């Protein structure tokens, strides 16, 4: 049997599904076989993975058709990452969700992302530090979410739950393919100077927002971070603000808390999102002046407060941009409607139900951000050259 770690779904005209499966290649470790081999100038390199595809009228049929050109039976019980092309995302991912719900081997804990770019090129690219690209991609998604929080939570179960909840729309991770190598191009780069020159194949950046099961637009990193602040899903984020003393201060941010309050007055609903942020100074960028002020001095409370206020302003801007874009696209990724559904079911049933899109576009949202600059790393004051 063979166990694909990545399944990628695409749709061809006229509505035929393509599924690309990426399999780890255990024979590469012993340099046996030629599966996934790149050959140029007489030098053959056996890759530790192989990508093969199948087509069918449904995702299930397409997956089964992969076996027509694979020497082993597929077992889908170890699929870690699910990729969906932008084309399929915009057409509707309902068939893919059905496939995952019904198949006894597939699991809803798989991470799912929408790919912007050539998906096949992505699946045929190497991850320089990873023998198994599927695991490498999985690690990237988890790492970026934990360290930068600029992508949404990624498990398929989470998306299915959100799709079934009233008053909230899902956002999927966005993966941008960076390189689309021509045939043999990667091999030429490897063979020209005798050593491989690895380049990143993809970038994990922002999110794809959906209206139910159809994608309607992209959110960039700042907008996605704004959404995560409101949802309370930020574990770590990076923000660089101007220092009142000149130069830049880089802060590492953590979510201290968040809350959504609402007021319902007749047909008017107002939301207030309160976000608490803990910040730590991680870097300071300022031209040093011998004998002058330190680039960062934690004893100057006015400067500390100013930096905190500027950070709060930047976060507020990110959130407001995200809200504006969400209103423009007509997708409530923040779950404001779901808050009304859960806390005020009578209001939801009598006034809002079926019309949340209208209410959302006219929704008044106040953002209150409080940044608490707590730590300065392992040094307090910047050094002053003498």
């Amino acid at each position, binding site marked *: 049997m063979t166990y694909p770690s990545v399944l990628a779904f695409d749709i061809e005209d006229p509505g035929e599904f393509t599924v690309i499966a990426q399999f780890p290649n255990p024979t590469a470790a012993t340099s046996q076989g030629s599966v996934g081999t790149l050959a140029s100038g007489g030098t053959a390199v056996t890759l530790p993975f192989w990508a093969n595809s199948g087509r069918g009228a449904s995702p299930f049929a397409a997956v089964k058709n992969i076996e027509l050109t694979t020497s082993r039976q597929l077992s889908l019980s170890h699929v870690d990452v699910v990729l969906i092309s932008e084309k399929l995302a915009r057409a509707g991912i309902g068939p893919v969700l059905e496939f995952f719900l019904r198949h006894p081997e597939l*699991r809803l804990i798989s991470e799912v992302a929408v790919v912007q770019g050539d998906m096949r090129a992505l699946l045929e690219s190497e991850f320089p530090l990873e023998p198994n690209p599927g695991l490498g991609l999985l690690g990237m998604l988890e790492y970026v979410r934990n360290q930068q929080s600029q992508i949404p939570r990624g498990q398929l179960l989470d998306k299915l739950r959100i799709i079934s909840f009233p008053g909230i729309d899902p956002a999927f991770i966005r993966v941008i393919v960076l390189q689309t190598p021509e045939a043999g191009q990667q091999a030429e780069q490897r063979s020209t100077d005798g050593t491989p020159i690895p380049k990143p194949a993809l970038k994990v950046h922002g999110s794809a927002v959906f209206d139910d099961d159809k994608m309607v637009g992209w959110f960039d990193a700042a907008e996605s971070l704004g959404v995560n602040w409101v949802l309370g899903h930020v574990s770590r984020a990076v923000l660089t603000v101007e220092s009142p003393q000149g130069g830049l201060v880089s802060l590492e941010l953590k979510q201290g808390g968040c809350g959504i309050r609402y007021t319902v007055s007749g047909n008017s609903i107002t939301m207030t999102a309160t976000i608490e942020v803990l910040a730590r100074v991680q870097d300071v960028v300022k031209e040093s002046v011998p004998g002058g002020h330190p680039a960062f001095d934690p004893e100057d409370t006015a400067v500390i407060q100013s930096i905190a206020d500027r950070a709060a302003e930047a976060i507020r801007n990110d959130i407001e941009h995200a809200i504006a874009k969400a209103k423009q696209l007509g997708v409530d990724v923040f779950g404001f409607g779901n808050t009304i559904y859960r806390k005020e079911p009578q209001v939801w049933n009598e006034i809002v139900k079926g019309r949340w899109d209208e209410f959302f576009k006219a929704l008044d949202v106040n953002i209150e951000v409080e940044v608490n600059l707590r730590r300065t790393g392992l040094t307090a004051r910047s050094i002053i050259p003498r």
Partner: protein
Amino acid sequence: MLFITRSSISIATLPALTMGSAAQDAWAASLVIALGSVLIVLLIAGLGIRFEDKSVVRFSQELLGKPFGMAITIGFLIVLLHFVGAEARLYAELIIGSFVPDTPIPFIVGSMVILAAIACYLGVETIGRTSDVLVPLFTLAILIALPMGFSAFDSRSLEPVLARGLKPVLSSTATSLALGGKYLSLGVLIPQATKPTRILLPAVATTLLAGITQTLIAVMVVGVLGPDLGNSSVFPFLSALRAVNIIRLIQRVEALGTIAWGFAILVDTSVLLYVLCRATSELMDLQDYRPLVGPIATVWFVYSMQSYDNLLSLLHFHESPAFAVFVTVTVFVPYALLWIAYGIRTLKVFEKRRR
């Protein structure tokens, strides 16, 4: 033994059977079911302890007369056959649907029938000792799996709480309360106990414990899958456990749920088969029930295989009002009549003593 047999229902299908109208309030339905089950135990075991040396086969004839008593007993046997047949078929459908799709269903069902028949033939003592071994393992599996399921919990799934009132909650309890007809086995088992008159308290306690387990499972399933997904799942508890993914190291915890259910099925089907054979032997005035084990096991196997076309028809029948009516007419109404007859007889004895 009661705990493991009752909890097996919640592992199997309870959330799906209750969530249809209760949706996110399935946990409330489970609480109602727990209380209702206690009443059922009091109804059945409460009368049984008053005839500590007689099974329901004997005292039903004593209270209502031989023809009517026998008719009631035949109704009990039909219900017990239904329960044991549905149980085996349901578990076989899980095994085949999730793990071994190419295995013929008669093989799975036949294996369960043979195992239960062997246990039944060896006697109630053997079943009890087996239960003594399996119940701790069952409990341990549930105790490990259930908290892990909460790792994927989303409290939004449980809201809004009771927004539609109690009507959907109450209407979704019919099927599960009807499944409480399984406690009918107490009517035959009480005379087998070492101290029959002391059965009631442990029976009520284990029923409450099973009810609490069901409620926690319902909360976990709704919280993990959400009301819509949980309602459409065929085996919601196991589907919810498939969502466990703790630091990417702890996965595939549904194995614990499946194993626990397997233990519960073994004990449950053995007990039900034993009760069937015992009650039939008493009805036929036979000295020993063992010669009936083979024939009744065969009838059980045929019933399991032939009574339902597929899993969906099995679930559909149990979700329909027909099932609740069937159990009410064959179990609860007869027991109500037995209580009335017992009450009248007690009054007559009391009157006689007064004179």
